[in-house]
């Protein structure tokens, strides 16, 4: 105790020299925004002590930019403690609300201000993300001590996310905005286009090995539909994965199911319109990306690139599938199918990426539970189907129908009632049910066998950076479920056989609650559960999305290493699926704006909010208007010859032409001719793939040959 009179000039810097936190503060200077300065002080009380996972601090009155979701740094004796700001509470010394009421009671107008306003402090709860000790070899869990709190720098945020310990490629998933100012390379505060101080933004990184396996895997999006967040972000993240993987020489592909309108059929069209299409984009209701989007892409180091290697697969429109009559084999390679496919991408010059899906009976015989109603599928029916499939070698409806008629005639002749142990009534029932299959799976199923020729198939191996869209938006629910189930099953088998063709495959399934409902059964659910459980080891990861997380199989969610939450409704958020989130976080989710998500990742100790720019591709509806010639926008805005150029680029060689060269050479050629050249060239190129002929033939030489032939033919017709 010092004694005697002391007159003190209030200068807090005098106390700083004695602070026990001087060493950690100095050591971790690069982790705290000292330019912004102290934003508050840690408080710890008997009722609400600081712990390893949670601490509290009160904020300086002038810290108006500080808010929920910001990342801050406090200190323990020998460590910097980085955490995310959660619940704010404003405290005053008022004992009860009534005290304030009686203060004004009968005497003062409600808007009258007293000369002194009762002091209030804003106390924030902080959830600890990570702690960094002075020594590299010490993992500290010690709580913060009373002392200053600072905004975290990008370096601190990266550390908190565990980036330096990532075993895989860091993939930017969201952009976190803090309350401190962004500083440019010259050390100046960044000013945005509105003249305001720009806030510090940092990518929220995901570890590739925890997103795409093998350490952990899978991602899940939940949130109300209509806010254009789940699919948009899934596309943004897929683009980020593609770019980052390419930079590190790893191959990756994605399989997507388009279940709504034109959502996923224009993924090869950039969100940034080429100059000649700016007006068309605007007319379609899409003004392109905003300045903030460009800044966001720049700050996370991503290019705004559409998915160039896009393939769309669609079944035929109902009743328009080839193979009517009694055609034994449908040769799809020679079919003109584009006009008949059940997809919204129909514009000539844009549909060269669209391929058909057509099934014979054969695959259906392996999944009778998916084909027939449960009531029809008794043991007798199962046995008969197995008979046709395994012993009779039936592969088409035509063959089946012929065989059954033969059997029935045989029974009629002999007067018998059984064939191969199967009763005549069962055979008649089977005939009846099989006859109904064409209409049940209308557009997908044909009577004969199917020969794809050299056409790509929806369930074939993938190529690097390929985005494969299965367009089932306009199909009936029988076709939808059958296609999703069979394609995912097939992909899963390919994965088990290590025949995916790429290092990693992303399977995006929207409406996951429909395909893998909580407490549900079914082969697709089982496959999805299997993928969720084992997929990360077999290089298949599930990107699932749904409106109601609580309605999705718990095993799938439990295996998800990364989860994103958009706006969630109040009826949904009370479910157990959200119990690990704090009440403040839940309240935030109730009103989360478009373009903002909460992310949980295997490396993060606490969930984090972040925003993301618009995806690098044009929104489906706008793409439909611009590129499919809808809503008064002429389809001629895109040159049909560009399909030839894209094809040439897909098979790169020394003679790959420029876009101008292709357009010049194909000038005047009809769209139908160009489409035919495309189909022929692609099939030819696929047929020589892996053979010695591949070295002698280039796509461009074949295209040139096709153009010459087409000109001759058109001249001849005239």
């Amino acid at each position, binding site marked *: 105790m010092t004694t005697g009179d002391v007159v003190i000039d209030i200068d807090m810097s005098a106390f700083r020299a004695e602070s026990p936190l001087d060493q950690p503060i100095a050591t971790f200077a690069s982790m705290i925004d000292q330019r912004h300065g102290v934003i508050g002080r840690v408080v710890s009380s008997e009722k609400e002590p600081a712990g390893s996972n949670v601490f509290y601090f009160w904020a300086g009155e002038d810290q108006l930019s500080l808010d929920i979701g910001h990342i801050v740094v406090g200190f323990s004796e020998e460590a910097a403690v980085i955490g995310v700001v959660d619940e704010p509470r404003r405290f005053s010394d008022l004992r009860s609300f009534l005290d304030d009421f009686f203060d004004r009671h009968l*005497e003062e107008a409600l808007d009258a*201000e*007293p*000369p002194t306003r009762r002091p209030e402090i804003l106390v924030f709860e902080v959830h600890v993300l990570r702690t960094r000790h002075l020594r590299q070899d010490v993992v500290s869990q010690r709580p913060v001590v009373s002392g200053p709190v600072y905004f975290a720098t990008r370096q601190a945020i990266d550390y908190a996310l565990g980036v330096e310990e990532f075993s895989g490629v860091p993939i930017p998933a969201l952009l976190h905005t803090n309350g401190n100012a962004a500083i440019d390379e010259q050390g100046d505060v960044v000013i945005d286009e509105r003249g305001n101080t720009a806030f510090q933004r940092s990518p929220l990184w995901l570890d590739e090995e925890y997103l795409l396996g093998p350490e952990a895997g899978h991602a899940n999006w939940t949130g109300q539909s209509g806010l254009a967040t789940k699919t948009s972000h899934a596309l943004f993240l897929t683009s980020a994965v593609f770019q980052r993987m390419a930079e590190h020489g790893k191959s990756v592909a994605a399989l997507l199911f388009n279940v709504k309108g034109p959502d996923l059929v224009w993924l090869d069209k950039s969100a940034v319109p080429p100059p000649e299409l700016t007006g068309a984009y605007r007319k379609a209701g899409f003004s392109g990306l905003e300045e903030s989007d460009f800044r966001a892409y720049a700050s996370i180091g991503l290019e705004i690139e559409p998915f160039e290697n896009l393939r769309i697969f669609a079944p035929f429109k109902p009743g328009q599938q080839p193979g009517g009559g009694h055609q034994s084999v449908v040769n799809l390679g020679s079919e003109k199918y584009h006009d008949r496919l059940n997809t919204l991408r129909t514009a000539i010059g844009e549909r060269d990426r669209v391929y058909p899906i057509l099934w014979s009976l054969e695959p259906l015989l392996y999944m009778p539970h998916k084909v027939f109603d449960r009531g029809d599928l008794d043991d007798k029916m199962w046995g008969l189907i197995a008979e046709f499939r395994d012993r009779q070698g039936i592969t088409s409806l035509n063959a089946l129908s012929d065989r059954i008629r033969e059997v029935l005639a045989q029974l009629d002749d002999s007067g018998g009632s059984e064939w191969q142990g199967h009763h005549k009534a069962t055979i008649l029932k089977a005939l009846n049910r099989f006859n109904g299959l064409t209409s049940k799976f209308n557009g997908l199923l044909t009577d004969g066998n199917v020969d794809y020729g050299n056409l790509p198939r929806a369930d074939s191996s993938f190529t690097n950076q390929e985005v494969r869209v299965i367009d089932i938006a306009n199909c009936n629910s029988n076709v939808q479920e059958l296609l999703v189930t069979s394609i995912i099953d097939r992909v899963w088998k390919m994965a088990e056989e290590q025949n995916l063709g790429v290092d990693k495959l992303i399977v995006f399934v929207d409406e996951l609650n429909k395909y893998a409902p909580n407490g549900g059964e079914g082969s697709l659910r089982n496959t999805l559960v299997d993928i969720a459980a084992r997929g990360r080891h077999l290089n298949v990861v599930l990107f699932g999305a749904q409106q109601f997380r609580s309605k999705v199989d718990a095993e799938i969610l439990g295996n998800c290493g990364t989860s994103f939450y958009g706006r969630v409704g109040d009826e949904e958020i009370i479910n157990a699926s959200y119990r690990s989130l704090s009440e403040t976080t839940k309240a935030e989710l109730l009103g989360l704006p478009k373009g903002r998500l909460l992310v949980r990742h295997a490396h993060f100790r606490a969930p984090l909010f972040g925003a993301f720019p618009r995806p690098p591709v044009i929104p489906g509806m706008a793409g439909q208007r611009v590129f499919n010639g809808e809503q008064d926008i002429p389809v001629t805005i895109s040159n049909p010859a560009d399909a030839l150029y894209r094809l040439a680029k897909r098979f790169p060689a020394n003679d790959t032409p420029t876009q101008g060269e292709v357009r010049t050479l194909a000038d005047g050629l009809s769209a139908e001719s160009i489409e035919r050249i495309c189909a022929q060239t692609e099939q030819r190129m696929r047929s020589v793939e892996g053979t010695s002929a591949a070295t002698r033939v280039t796509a461009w030489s074949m295209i040139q040959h096709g153009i010459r032939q087409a000109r001759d033919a058109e001249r001849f017709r005239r």
Partner: protein
Amino acid sequence: MRSSVSLEDRLGELQQLEELPSEDERTGTIEWMEALSPFAIPVESIAGPTSIRYFLDGSQKTLPGYFQSAIPILASVTAAAVLERRSPIDLQLVPGMLKLNSSWLVPEKAESPAIGQFVASARTSETAIVDPLDHLANDHAAYRAALDDYIGLEREAMSASRRLRRQGETELLRMWSHDPPADGSWLVYDGALREPVPQTVGLVKSFNRQYITGEYADQLFRMPAGHRTPMFRVNDRRHGGSYAVWYLRFWDAQGRDPRYGLVRVEVTYTSELPPVDLLSAWILAERRPRASNDARWPTLIYPIHYLEQILKRYLAREVRYWPGARAA
């Protein structure tokens, strides 16, 4: 490590009694300066900022340090400061206007070798020593008798501590009076004025001395909230100076003690009458927000409460690891 409760916390009620001023401090008669009818004058209610900008208060802690035989040796820690209200939400201590004092309270004249050693040791280390029985220094018998009364000595020590706190407050008031703000801002001092100070209001919360008697006392006790009495003049014979004084009722006392919510306001008397109505309105406005965490809230204004909270934390920091009473 043991902590120890301060005498103020332990003997709080006694402290109240000690607030009684000496009988001879002020004249027993008063001189009315305004008409006595009406006796209860309504004070205009105002909202928003006032010209009261500064607030002065002090706080103290008296702690057991050592004991020798039945003689307690205590420590006094006091703090006094001026708070400036820069805006309704910005209240700051005025730089250079915070006074801290730490002293040992030792009955130096006790004929005890241990006490003598303690005093010598304290002086060697330039520690301040205050004798709580100093006022009995010339009465040897009374001094000796007081040494045998442990409780009495504690009270004396607390009074000495209070005097040290008042010294600090008085010094700050003098500093203020030497350089009052040019903008005409006023200072509210929590307590009775002891010497003339310009632009300063003394606000007395306790009702330990009754200046108004007789029929006017009856009217005073019935005075409604938001009213004041006429102003009267009081002379301080001990310290010198004259003061313009009036009472002001903060809160309605219906159904309560008649002194409830009653404060005494004092302003240095000069030839120019103070703006009693304006000052009353300003002070009345200061009752909000209520300092409801303090039992004295009906007569306490919030900035003084605010300042007390700051000072108490200063004191708490000073004595955080106080070990409690030890044998000397």
